[in-house]
């Protein structure tokens, strides 16, 4: 049951036709982040999901920066 000020129809149907690049939650050096897969072995950081405030001051993990990320299959 959803208890929100946003109407339910808006939650589920608004903007659904806009396709968004696949996103994935990954963990690098203990920091969970949401990244957008760019499809060429790199990914763009969308946001960090970390409870440590100092992680957000690390320039390497600024949202928008590109990291090399390719899942390994073996």
């Amino acid at each position, binding site marked *: *049951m*959803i*208890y929100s*000020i946003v109407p339910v129809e808006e939650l589920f149907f608004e903007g659904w036709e806009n396709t968004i690049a696949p996103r994935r939650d990954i963990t690098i050096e203990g920091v969970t982040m949401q990244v957008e897969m760019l499809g060429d072995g790199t990914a763009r950081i969308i946001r960090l999901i970390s409870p440590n405030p*100092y992680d957000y001051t690390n320039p390497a993990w600024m949202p928008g920066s590109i990291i*090399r990320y390719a899942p*390994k299959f073996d």
Partner: protein
Amino acid sequence: MHRIPYLSAETQPEDEKKRSAAVESIQQLGQTTVATSADSNIYCLTIIGQVEGHVVLPPQNKTTKYEHIIPQLVAAEQNPKIEGVLVILNTVGGDVEAGLAIAEMIASLSKPTVTLVLGGGHSIGVPIAVSADWSIIAETATMTIHPIRLNGLVIGVPQTFEYLDKMQERVIRFILNHSRISEEELKSLMFKTGELTRDIGTTVIGADAVKKGLIDQVGGVAEALRELNRRIEERKQAAGGVVS
């Protein structure tokens, strides 16, 4: 082509692991030394957008996921380096069960907790906002207190209303048990008509929320951290000066 090896890092011996971590950082970030984050004694949880529970919302919604928050709170309780938890809220509400679960988790932490409502702490954000030892609201932040709506297929029988009433009661009980607001006041805010355009309920802003007894203080991040640090000190002293 190079493959990034960190997904299989667990299986390597210790020094091999260290070396590959350096290679990894060159590959990923183009530099050998990655600024490793300092450890903070404060655990900062941000609850933004929709609180996401059993139903995965479409990707255009910004959400805070239950499965991210709950284990983090367990870790905060268990980790001896963590001395206090700061919860920052800017949420429009979301799943009732997930919201209440997060609120119960925060309320049952043995370490000092402070919540700070910035922007908004609406609907199911209200029990989360009041769950901490001390709650703070920014002067411009709002909280919308309104009844739970039924959505999906609704069967028009009295039992439907009873079910909804029970859901409502869970939220109301939690807020009453964790804040200074009276039941009459809370219910009058919740069922007020004519104030919200599309709904029944009330929007309380900053100082208003404090006056009604919902939130403890008006303030910002400085007040929140001061209060949290004060409580951490107090707890240390109570434990006989030993950091626990």
